[in-house]
């Protein structure tokens, strides 16, 4: 057997895994160096990586949050629940609206300018108004997250429908397709690649907005955990929250990509 036919051996012999480890090692070493070894004034308040790790995996955490406490998972559960609820609502409303705008000219001319007028207002600037308009603590945070995901979804769905080759519509009509069949067999599959690009962007944006929403208006959730840790000067907990958010964001995007691949098996990525 040649080395090329054994993926494991091949991957071990290529420099990639070692360079990957080297990259992380360099960054961690630099972090350790400026915080623990050298006494750089700017980094005096920042904790070394070892302290963060120790706190993160400490059965009896100094500041009350680690992988062994239920509080940590409750923050995660709140954030995930909010991000995914908002994302699901954005898909539920955004995709049909985008298809309507993209497919029906009259509807597009009526509504698209309005969408384009409201879109530049950053989702995060909805926070104060959302708190005033909606009751309780959950709806404002979910609303702000929803706004962030909604516009990205609508815009990319419209793009997707508009990018379908017009000859497909003509072909379908020649073959006697009803409008319903055109929707199911031409518009939806044709727009799908763009829709999923939009959903990936939307997922990223919803995490961005969620954190801001939780910091300003939330009770519980990772954004709140970071902000709370900040006000109590619990720096390892801040790092823990940031890295957890990074992981959750990464897996959420990977999930959307995976679903896209499954639903569009006819395309080779």
């Amino acid at each position, binding site marked *: 057997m040649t080395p090329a036919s054994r993926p494991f051996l091949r991957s071990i012999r290529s*420099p*990639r895994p070692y*360079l*990957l480890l*080297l*990259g*992380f090692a*360099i*960054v961690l070493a630099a972090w350790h160096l400026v915080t623990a070894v050298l006494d750089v004034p*700017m980094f005096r*308040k*920042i904790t070394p990586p070892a302290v963060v790790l120790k706190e993160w995996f400490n059965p009896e955490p100094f500041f009350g949050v680690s992988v062994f406490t239920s509080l940590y998972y409750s923050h995660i559960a709140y954030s995930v629940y909010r991000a995914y609820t908002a994302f699901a609502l954005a898909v539920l409303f955004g995709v049909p609206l985008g298809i309507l705008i993209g497919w029906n000219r*009259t509807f597009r*001319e*009526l*509504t*698209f*300018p*309005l969408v384009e*007028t409201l879109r*530049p*207002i*950053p*989702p*995060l*600037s*909805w*926070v*104060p*108004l959302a*708190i*005033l*308009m*909606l009751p309780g603590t959950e709806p404002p945070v979910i609303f702000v997250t929803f706004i962030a995901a909604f516009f990205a979804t609508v815009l990319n769905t419209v793009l997707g429908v508009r990018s379908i080759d017009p000859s497909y519509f003509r072909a379908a009509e020649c073959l006697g397709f009803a409008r319903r069949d055109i929707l199911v067999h031409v518009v939806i599959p044709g727009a799908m690649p763009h829709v999923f690009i939009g959903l990936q962007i939307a997922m*990223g944006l919803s*995490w*961005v907005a969620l*954190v*801001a929403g939780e*910091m*300003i208006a939330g009770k519980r959730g*990772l*954004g709140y955990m*970071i*902000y709370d*840790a*900040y006000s109590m*000067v619990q*720096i390892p907990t*801040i*790092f823990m*929250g*940031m*890295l957890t*958010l*990074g992981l*959750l*964001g*990464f897996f959420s*995007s990977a999930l959307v990509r995976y679903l896209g691949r499954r639903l569009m098996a006819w395309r080779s990525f």
Partner: protein
Amino acid sequence: MALSAALWRGIAGIALFFALWEAASLVKLPFLRFVPPPHVVLENVVQTIQTPAYWSAVYISAKRVAIGYVIGVALGVPIGLAFGVSRVFRDTFFPVFETLRPIPPLAWVPLSILFWPSIELTVVSIIFLGSFFTVVINVLGGVETLDARYLRAAVSMGATPWQVFRKVIVPATSPSIFTGAAIAMGLTWEIVVAAEMVSSIGSGQTGLGAMMWQAYVGGVIPLIITAMISIGLAGLVFSALIWQIGAYATRWRRVV
């Protein structure tokens, strides 16, 4: 004629939205209890833009956006290109970059406040982070989609690595550079608001985000909406500027 029909429909759609908003305030829909009708907001817009405090807030936010954004692009473009051209650099640092990228910019705020000596630097650094990651990813994407035949052609005609970089890779990537720069600009105005709301409450200079938060705390609701509109418009103007610069810099792409 088709265009003007579209224009009228667009105006009708927007007018309908404002009419519904006005009507909803008139009949006092419960969730709009605190939201003033459009004519009150308009009055507030007219009043607010005549005050020097408003323009100073616009200036402060714009300055923060500009500084953070320029540093973000200035560092993001070379690093994106380096990821694209050097395999070793990419294999070493791209995984670290991809680990940090999904962390939302706002999650950096508390750490930045502790790290930087002033609020000003905190807000600027958050804007920097937001634009930096976006620019790098787009520049790298641009290098990756480069047609390998151009590289081979240049090399076979005796181009040096520097010539390949300067004459092939950079021009071919420039559309992606400007796309990334424009997307990043859209993001920065979003970030400045939240960063100002979270970090400069009570301290530091008052940007548009802080102005909005003070309006919220003080219960001056029309001012909240005025601030929202201002932030939206400012973002629009800044993005249009970047698109214009991009269109000019890559004017050879214009289809004749």
